[in-house]
């Protein structure tokens, strides 16, 4: 069908193609096939030559295929076959097995009449990949649904914790208070002491519940990302701390820092970090608290540093867990929720947080803010 030179070029081009290629005449007879046909279908080129192209198609499709084929000869165009209509196509191997294929059709007009150029690609691997992607997506969707349900349950749980656990505590504290007043006249010191313990225990449990609820609010909060002037927030917090204990000699060294993040959440985080610094420097004669930033390996690392009591780095892994405390309540009061809250805020921003410290050497908290940071 070609001149000798043309034919050589044509042959080598067709053999170089990764797909099986067959050329079919107007009656559906295979007039040419490349060697990939063998790899895909198991037939040698010679075995398919002069055979109807339906030899390569599962029997259940052959009637339909003949109709489509004659229709194509009448109005040929370059197009993918079947898949355009969302149909899956299958090839039939010599051994009778089937496999998924994709076919592109191009009409060729030659001296010997109209021919159809068919490029056949084995889609087995792609179909498998598609199938596993679909399965993975389905699994993700299911897991996501489960998470949404779990989150709702948690929300309901924290609501009932707040309501139901605080109610008996109110009764314990309130009636102890009334008893305290009644007993004051009898001045039974021991009894009054016990009652005061009952009350402070109830109040402490109230604080724990409140802090736990705050933590769960942070976890569930939706983020609103804006530019946040951390220095301004820190100045305000500094002002509050000075007002709380005006007798303390304390210096705040606050660098100018602007970040992108959720202002409410970042304020909560900074408040906890500065309150912590303030608390653990309370036994200092002079307090120095710093807020600053450094550039490190292409990211900005922010820090809050104090010159307080510090802690043993052996316990550093406990630092950010809820209810974890590194100091006794007598030395420093607290519920152990503060740093867990800070860590959640930082993680929600896609950042990391860590600390460096040593006993009596002060503490530095470092954090990054992920991609939101400017």
């Amino acid at each position, binding site marked *: 069908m070609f001149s000798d030179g043309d034919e050589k070029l044509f042959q080598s081009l067709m053999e170089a193609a990764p797909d099986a290629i067959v050329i079919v005449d107007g009656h559906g007879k295979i007039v040419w096939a490349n060697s990939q046909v063998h790899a895909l279908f198991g037939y040698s080129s010679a075995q398919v030559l002069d055979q109807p192209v339906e030899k390569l198609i599962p029997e259940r499709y052959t009637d339909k295929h003949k109709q489509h084929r004659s229709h194509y000869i009448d109005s040929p165009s370059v197009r993918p076959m079947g898949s355009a209509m969302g149909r899956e196509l299958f090839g039939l191997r010599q051994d009778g097995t089937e496999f998924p294929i994709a076919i592109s059709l191009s009409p060729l007009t030659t001296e010997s009449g109209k021919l159809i150029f068919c490029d056949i690609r084995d889609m087995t691997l792609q179909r498998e990949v598609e199938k596993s992607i679909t399965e993975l997506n389905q699994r993700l969707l299911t897991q996501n649904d489960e998470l949404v349900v779990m989150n709702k349950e948690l929300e309901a749980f924290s609501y009932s914790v*707040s*309501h139901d656990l605080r109610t008996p505590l109110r*009764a314990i504290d*309130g009636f102890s*208070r009334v008893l305290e007043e009644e007993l004051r006249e009898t001045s039974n010191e021991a009894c009054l002491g016990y009652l005061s313990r009952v009350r402070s225990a109830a109040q402490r449990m109230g604080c724990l519940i409140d802090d736990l609820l705050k933590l769960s609010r942070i976890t569930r909060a939706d983020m609103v990302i804006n530019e946040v002037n951390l220095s301004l927030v820190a100045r305000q917090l500094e002002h509050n701390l000075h007002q709380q204990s005006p007798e303390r000699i304390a210096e705040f060294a606050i660098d100018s820092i602007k970040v992108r993040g959720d202002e409410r959440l970042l304020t909560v985080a900074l408040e906890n970090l500065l309150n912590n610094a303030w608390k653990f420097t309370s036994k200092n004669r002079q307090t120095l608290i710093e807020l600053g930033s450094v550039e490190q390996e292409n990211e900005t690392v922010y820090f809050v540093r104090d010159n307080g009591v510090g802690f043993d780095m052996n316990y550093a892994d406990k630092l950010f867990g809820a209810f974890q405390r590194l100091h006794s309540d007598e030395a420093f009061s607290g519920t152990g929720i503060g740093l867990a809250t800070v860590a959640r805020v930082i993680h929600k921003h896609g950042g990391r947080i860590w600390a460096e410290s040593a006993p009596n050497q002060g503490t530095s908290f470092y954090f990054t803010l992920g991609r939101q940071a400017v």
Partner: protein
Amino acid sequence: MKDRVILLVEDNPDDAELTKLALSRNNLRNEVVWAKDGVEALEYLFGTGSYAGRDVADIPVVVLLDLKMPRVDGLEVLKQLRADPRTAIVPVVVLTSSREEEDRMRGYSLGANSYVRKPVDFDEFVKSAGQLGMYWLLLNEAPKD
């Protein structure tokens, strides 16, 4: 002239007793009518059921309303009370147990006049009861006969 009553709607007897104690510690001498749930509160306000025949024109000086109650909850009481012209203007102080509850209530914008969060610390509760008492009692002098 008799002082108007304070209507306390609270299902928990401990909280009810503590609220009464907190009010009396602030020298608020108004009679406290205790409704144990929303049904009782509505019966009192509209003179039905166990309060059939009560003069409903004699409205409370303030309603202290707990939210989570069996049968009819605080939200529903507030809705019905605001919908009825006889009680639409009664000051209502919602007693909440948590910030979440308060936020949620504000979201409904049903016209609660203020919110008091019931703290665990009784002294704090006495303090806020005193503040809310002063505010509502001074602001809501009994109507002249």
